[in-house]
């Protein structure tokens, strides 16, 4: 009952604290919104390619359809009158690429001399490279068709033609259990987990405000037991993390249509994250000497963990050493668990390892907190 009394008090204080809603919910939402908008073009269907079709023939349209069919991009038609402006934008670096189907493309195609132009801004290879590959792949389809026609004209039977064109090496495209991969499936759970760790600041603040105010000592003159004081700080913030994660994931779902997968599995992960974050919060709160010191440690855990734990970028994009360090952060296990559920249709059974690791982090942090708490209490009552 005492734990629930402290929980109720903490919730009242949280709700009346100016800025809490901003820091817990609005700021993370802004991050998800901004970074989602910035990086959403990196997703499979997110790259938009402006094009100008000066030919307008069926053949030109068929080529554009072939480009579209390669996947991974969306074509956006610009009027012929905008050609000069579009080229100027690419030249000025305000637009990364432009596909132009020139006039006479259809006639030239009949003679095997057709050309298209892909204008690309200097230094944009990383984002425009996949588009260049897609256009070349479409052009290659035409080349193969021409070769096949020539071979058939020379009397080679069709099965033999197919064998020649197949080439010695084939790439098998295997997409394992994935729903649609999307940068948002990185960003939404990533920032949700990252901001959950900032709850540590609130826990540290409560402990040190209570200590400095003399409230810890005063509460200890009631029937409250030390373990109840710890639990009374753990429970309300654990609930706050759960609410925060639920709101941010729902925000990602509503705004960007991010696929959440098995809600039960996500809920289990969120609970594990909440347990881990609050246990770390208790440990930091009772070990540091001041609120400022606690804030510094929180930044280290939250930002450092986000960076090496793969919350900002997929972890396989990082150097090998960083990947190894990343495995030592709770953020890594939380993010991997989220993506197992959201991208690979995993259920509770698929994330047991992630939950177990998060629980182990929690147990270690809680043990540290419980070990140090008597000393914190002595300092709080004798000050």
């Amino acid at each position, binding site marked *: 009952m005492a734990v629930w009394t402290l929980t109720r008090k903490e919730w009242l204080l949280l709700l009346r604290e100016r800025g809490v809603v901003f820091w817990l919910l609005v700021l993370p939402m802004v991050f998800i919104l901004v970074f989602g908008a910035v990086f959403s073009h990196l997703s499979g269907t997110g790259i938009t390619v402006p094009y100008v079709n000066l030919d307008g023939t069926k053949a030109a349209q068929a080529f554009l359809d072939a480009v579209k069919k390669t996947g991974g991009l969306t074509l956006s038609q610009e009027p012929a009158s905008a050609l000069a402006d579009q080229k100027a934008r690419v030249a000025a670096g305000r637009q990364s690429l432009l596909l132009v189907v020139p006039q006479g493309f259809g006639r030239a195609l009949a003679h095997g001399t057709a050309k298209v132009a892909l204008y690309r801004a200097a230094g944009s290879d990383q984002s425009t490279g996949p588009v260049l590959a897609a256009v070349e792949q479409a052009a290659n389809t035409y080349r193969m068709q021409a070769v096949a026609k020539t071979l058939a004209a020379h009397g080679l039977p069709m099965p033999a033609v197919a064998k020649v064109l197949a080439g010695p090496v084939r790439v098998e495209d295997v997409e394992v259990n994935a729903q649609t991969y999307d940068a948002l499936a990185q960003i939404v759970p990533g920032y949700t987990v990252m901001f959950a760790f900032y709850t540590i600041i609130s826990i540290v603040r409560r402990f040190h405000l209570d200590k400095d105010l003399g409230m810890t000592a005063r509460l*200890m003159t*009631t029937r409250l037991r030390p373990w109840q004081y710890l639990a009374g700080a753990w429970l309300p913030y654990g609930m706050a993390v759960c609410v925060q994660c639920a709101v941010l994931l729902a925000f990602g779902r509503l705004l960007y249509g991010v696929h959440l997968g098995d809600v039960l599995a996500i809920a289990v992960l969120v609970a594990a994250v909440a347990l881990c974050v609050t246990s770390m919060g208790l440990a930091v709160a009772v070990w540091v000497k001041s609120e400022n010191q606690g804030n510094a440690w929180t930044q280290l855990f939250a930002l450092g963990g986000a960076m090496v734990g793969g919350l900002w970028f997929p972890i396989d994009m990082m150097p090998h050493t960083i990947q190894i360090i990343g495995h030592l952060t709770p953020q890594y296990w939380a993010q991997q668990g989220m993506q197992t559920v959201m991208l690979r249709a995993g259920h509770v059974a698929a994330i047991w390892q992630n939950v177990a690791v998060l629980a182990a982090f929690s147990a270690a942090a809680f043990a540290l907190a419980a070990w140090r708490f008597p000393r914190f209490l002595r300092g709080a009552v004798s000050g």
Partner: protein
Amino acid sequence: MTQTARSAKTAAGEPAVAVEGLKVLYGERVALAGVSFEVPAGTCFGLLGPNGAGKSTTMKVLCGLVRPQAGWVRLFGREVSGGHADAGRIGYVPQAITLYDKLTAQENLALFGRLSGLRGAALAARMETVLTQVGLADRAREPVARFSGGMKRRLNIAAALLHEPELVIMDEPTVGVDPQSRYHIFNLVREMKTRGVTVIYCTHYMEEAEALCDHIAILDHGAVIARGPLSAVLREHAEPAVYLELDEPGYPEAPAGVTPPVVTGASPPQPDGDGWLYRLTAGHDALAVLEAVAGACRGQGLRVRRLEVVRPALERVFLKLTGTSLRDEA
């Protein structure tokens, strides 16, 4: 169970609080070096001392916040080994205002009430009672942030009275309050005494101790240097004196031409306020000196406005025992 009924459970003659040989060290620093005293049940006990004397540490030991390295504490006849065994019987009013500014008066009281074991209707009734006692019933739903210093002090006290404790420990409860709040707090302490509640009152204001306390203990450097009933301590550590005020023309603005008489049995009169003070010399009686002064005045044709035996102020005793050097806390 009412307070009176509960107090009656303390055996007759048994002090509410008995402390013997308390020793507390904070690292190398000695906070208490063998403190002993007794607090009779139903009285107000003044715990006095300069900064750093060990008053707060003593109170924390009584509340179970600090465990002594040596000595023992007996509350209502039962020895406590620190902790919460008697949390329900003790109400602690700390020197700091331990209230959450963003919560209302009612919400703050509900927090402490629930943590003291009160629930539902009983809690609501007690909250109403204590809010009325401290004159804040009409401000119950306001956030504490809007309260004046005096209102916060009174609410701080109310939080300690919710569970009807038999022993109330008050650590400088009138610091920074206006005269009206102080008057209200004094009345509250007197009212507690009439209901049989034992009060330990810690203060730096000697006039408060004189006005409220039946017994006192003066601590210095972690040890008790004087203790007992207030009147006995005053008697033991300061002689009474005789005070004289004359009613002469132009007096007291132009007292130069007026000379008070010198009498046997007292030192030469020293100016004190609007009159003179005769300190008794060893072995002389205050009444005899008073009579001698009256006779001398009559003999010299001096008209007397005021002539009385005065009890020495506690402040004088306190300074005599603890000295006048500054005691800035570390």
